[in-house]
């Protein structure tokens, strides 16, 4: 039974990898790649965010800018906005959230299917911004778990892209056991 390592059928692109390949990979002459299922799933997830744009304020204009062709979130696989939370896995909270709107945000978050991530876009979503008053939520992390905070009033598109790449890095490190996260941990007294 002669086993040939790196036979003639291997394409040049795969050849360098085979030098470090496992026995199984060598055995099948580059036709397969052995990896962890978790890594493959995370790799797929991080390049196919379906965003739900929860756009409430002026940051929305900056969001359109970064989603449009000039900065183009599609390069990072986060192009397609879904206007049903059932079809989305990235909640983009863009703008000021008032207390009256808080139950809606929580409802949208809870309606999204897992796994799901939350992106706080702009100073108001991060901390309430300069609206320290009777009507404004002081940061959406008091309502839903937030994965990425991008401050700025509004944030530059480069910051948003940087935040998205950081989210991708976070997703790549996740474990299956991280999910499901469950409903938003809002205190019962809030009755949201």
């Amino acid at each position: 039974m002669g086993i040939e390592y790196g036979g003639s059928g291997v394409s040049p692109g795969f050849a360098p990898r085979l030098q470090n390949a496992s026995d199984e990979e060598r055995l099948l002459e580059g036709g397969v790649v052995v990896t962890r299922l978790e890594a493959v799933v995370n790799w797929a997830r991080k390049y196919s965010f379906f965003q739900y744009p929860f756009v409430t304020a002026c940051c929305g204009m900056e969001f359109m800018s970064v989603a449009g062709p000039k900065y183009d979130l599609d390069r990072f696989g986060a192009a397609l906005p879904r206007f049903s939370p059932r079809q989305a896995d990235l909640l983009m909270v863009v703008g000021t959230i008032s207390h009256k709107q808080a139950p809606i945000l929580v409802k949208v978050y809870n309606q999204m299917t897992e796994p799901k991530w939350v992106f706080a876009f702009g100073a108001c979503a991060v901390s309430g911004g300069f609206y320290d008053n009777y009507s404004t939520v002081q940061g959406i992390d008091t309502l839903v778990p937030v994965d990425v905070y991008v401050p700025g009033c509004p944030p530059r598109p480069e910051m948003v892209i940087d935040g998205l790449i950081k989210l991708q890095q976070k997703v790549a490190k996740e474990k299956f056991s991280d999910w499901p996260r469950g409903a938003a941990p809002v205190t019962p007294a809030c009755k949201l």
Partner: protein
Amino acid sequence: MDASVTLKKLAERFPGSIVETHSFRGDDTAIVKKEDIAAICTFLRDDEALHYNFMMDLTAVDYLGREPRFEVVYHLYSLKYNRRVRIKAGVSESDCTIDSIVSVWPSADWFEREVYDMYGVVFNGHPELRRILLYEGFEGHPLRKDYPLKKRQPLIGPIN
């Protein structure tokens, strides 16, 4: 001071209700007693020479430390005569009520709800006087000058 047509007619019709009037460059203002507000509004709307058929704005002002503390302000417009008038009615804190004018101009409905929401002025005879911008369970009226700047609402909790 040259009193305008509107102010003259008001003074003739309601001599006991007008507290003060002034007219600056055609900007007519009448400060009236709150007990007669509905009658005055009906008169301003129905009088053939006035015909104030458009209630443009209804709001309130909080003069904390003054008596009466609140002032409910009505801005009226006559489409027929292209004429405007401002009516103000003082409302004290101890008796924080005034008659609703929804029966005169239905458009006053949401304005009165907003004034109730923000200042706590109760409009007697309003068909559905409840909060319009804030939510049920909100305590206090945030546009009052003595509303604490950093107050947090019980439904929201200490962090929020």
